[in-house]
């Protein structure tokens, strides 16, 4: 699948953007760094950097990318080396997606891109032109939790909570894929998400229950 083939108009606007900057505040941020469009985009999450630093950073290869995050359309110019995870965490302040290994081995960074679960640490941000990204911050409907979020609380399917956003996003993907026919199948298809606290039994229960309610 090439991100370029995605139709931007197919991206639906979403109601809830409480946890994300709106398009308006984002534009205001880029304006604040004084017309240096590239640098402004580069440091979207750090608007108070000195101008000379911004100019120095300007030397790094950067690209402009438009993507939808949790229903909000964002256009940003980023360093080509930036992963989707770092774009979310360091630039957009969406720290719900976690960095566990930065090598695609733990799943803590799992988000949905165009409805499919991906390791955001292995996904370059500039490849996501037109993509629709859903992170843990965009999963609930206002104050109403997604059923899988509620099931995680009810089943106590987490302890430290650090892998939890990735587990839940992965679980949403797993349910959508239909890989929930049995506990065995769920275990297999949820094995890309490590929980070092060892909550697997309860994670499987939460996914199984949520899938059963669908």
């Amino acid at each position: 699948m090439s991100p370029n083939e995605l139709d931007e108009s197919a991206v639906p606007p979403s109601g809830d953007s409480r946890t994300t900057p709106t398009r308006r505040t984002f534009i205001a941020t880029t304006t604040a760094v004084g017309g240096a469009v590239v640098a402004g985009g580069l440091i979207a999450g750090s608007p108070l950097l000195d101008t000379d630093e911004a100019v120095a950073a300007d030397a790094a290869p950067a690209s402009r990318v438009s993507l939808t995050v949790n229903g909000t359309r964002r256009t940003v110019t980023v360093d080509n080396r930036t992963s989707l995870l770092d774009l979310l965490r360091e630039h957009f302040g969406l720290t719900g997606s976690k960095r566990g290994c930065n090598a695609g081995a733990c799943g803590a960074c799992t988000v949905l891109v165009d409805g499919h679960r991906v390791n955001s640490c292995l996904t370059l941000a500039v490849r996501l032109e037109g993509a629709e990204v859903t992170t843990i911050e965009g999963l609930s409907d206002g104050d109403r939790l997604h059923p899988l979020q509620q099931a995680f609380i009810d089943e106590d399917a987490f302890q430290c909570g650090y892998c939890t956003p990735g587990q839940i996003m992965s679980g949403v993907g797993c349910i959508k894929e239909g890989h929930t026919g049995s506990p065995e199948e769920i275990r297999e298809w949820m094995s890309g998400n490590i929980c070092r606290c060892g909550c697997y039994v309860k994670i499987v229960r939460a996914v199984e229950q949520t899938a059963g309610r669908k």
Partner: protein
Amino acid sequence: MSPQPQAAVGAPLSRVDGRLKVTGQAEYAAELPHARTTSRGGTPTLKGVVHAVIVDASIGRGRITSIDTRAAERAAGVLRVIHHGNAPRLPYRDNSGSNNPAGRRLRVFQDNRVLFHGQPVAVVVGTTLEAAQHGASLVEVDYDAEQPSTDLTEAEPGEPTRYARGDAEAGLRSSAVRLDARYELARNHHNPMEPHATVAHWDGNQLTVWDKTQWVMGTHDEIAAVFDLPADAVRVVNPFVGGGFGSGLRCWPHTIVAALAARVTGRPVKLVLSRKQMYFGTGFRPAYRYRLRLGSDRRGRLKAAIHDIDAETSSYETFTEAVMGAGQMLYSMPHVRQAYRQVPLHVNTPIWMRGPGFASASFVIESAMDELAHELGVDPIELRLRNEPNEDESTNEPFSTRRLTECYRVGARDFGWDRRSPKPRSMRDGNWLIGLGMAAGVYDSGRYPGEARARLDADGTAVVEAATSDMGPGTYTSQTQVAADALGLTMRTVTFRLGDSRYPRTSPHGGSSTMASVGSAVVDACNKVREQAIKLAVEDRESPLYGVDANDVVVRGGRLHVQGNPARGETYQRLLARNNRSHLEGDGAYNGPGSDRSAYFAYNATFAEVAVDADLGLVRVRRMLGVYDAGRIISPKLAESQAFGGIVGGIGTALLEHTVTDHRDGRIVNAGLADYLVPVNADIRELKAVFLDGEDNAGNLLGVKGLGEVVQVGVAPAIANAVFNATGRRIRQLPITAEALL
């Protein structure tokens, strides 16, 4: 005072911080400066945070001869490269009372010595993470390398710590049945899912550090000592810990690096260790070589044991843990001799990991007991029952409570132990050999002094604070339960805050000590508040409780009333409003076990059923059961999760986890989650946890015995014993790999 009704304690409640965790709003160390003003701690958003990336030594031992930083400094976005050639000299005051082991702690960028592979040799600060990462790759370091010594079996051990009772040599010689076995336990790394991370911000001489730690006060004290700052100049904040298992029990060098980089650059600095750096930037459960000689009579009554224990430590600090404990008190026997030697290697210093010492020793002792049972033709549980002690034979102290035999009985019944054939290789399921095994577990839970503060506001809500942590067991929830009952409030009207060095001082969040220690201080603080309110009421002519004996008043749901007469009373809100009190406050303390002289341990019996592929040696754990004698269970729903977590951790130690070092240059070759294997979902099937009802009031107000450690102790040997039952192969090394079984 009348005992308070217990409504919250013992109830299977969901986590109070659950919503924050499932919505991605819980703020871990690297995330705090992005936070909007938070409800807990009121941390303001930091402006202009820059990123730091550490450059790791690429030799295992030697000296840095030159550092060329020109290319890095020319790179876009790089602000500064700091190393021993340009770093300010740091005072590194002694820090007594810390968790730093004996020795001379690693001093970052203070000289050109390299003590282990991966030691920080420079840090690159950049305006973006990408710039700092790229800059770090451009720093050229030349070394005068020496051969590191990293092999536990080759290096020269230090002086042993010894224990002896009776005459173990003579006891062994006169034993009718003797066992002499050598065990190898691999190094394990904690690998919490959250990498260690620090954000450091100087405001003049005031330093604020957001740091992943299990002990904000310990990190606070270490930073103050390293930079020689007054205590009130340092603040350490950490409301959420993304797993720890011990890795956050001391302040590691990278935290100092971040604070130093922030000092040098004058900017707030964020430093997140890579997963790879976690393997040498933080500690680990040390590898062991352990020889156990065991002697018994023909009926299986133990007579003597000789333990020769060698463990890894670093060349600059001598790490010790309680690996001698279980061998002294788990079973009754007259003659014991132990020698525990640390072997200094060119590695970084270990740190306690879940069930420290006891988990390692239990693999050895419980494997040997299983071997002895097989030799004697006695059931493994029966053998243990025949050696059950009546007191702690190392101190001659009585056990506060010890219900291990009950754990065996309940476990045997629940697990279907009677279906086990004692004959190895006699149970099959197709090509899978089936085996059942069990082991005992014990842990010497901590009870340490600590403080807490409680405040009841006029609106009938309360805030309780202590500088403890919640690395996952659910401190937020369980302390709220304890506080709610002591105050007579509902869960919803009590907020428990932790993770800030400005809160009352506590001991480390580790060693299964938090509930006994911090919980006792919380109860004390809340009792003081409740007693003030009761006193106010019974002395207030306007109160329906006027004139009532204070000892006859209880509080329930925020309402004070006469014990046994709920109609006569009033709410905290009315009482405080009428008396024009904005709030009531209480400082609580726990002073440790004090004069309590009983032997205070938590126990378990752990059972495992494994299937071993007869041709390939693959081991699959089919089901496990833990039965726990852990005193009172404050939060049953969370306790079950904790028990499952311990079992999963133990399965990792038993079958997967193994840090591999290349002895040629001291490099860890599997420093990552793709190569250092930990259990994943597909590895875990049926788990069950049973908690014996009861309490143990030895030196703590809550009747608890600690849970987080004991749940991992005994898991690895239960699996090893099940593997023996399945295959007839006695594997005396961890992890038990397919190769070992082929």
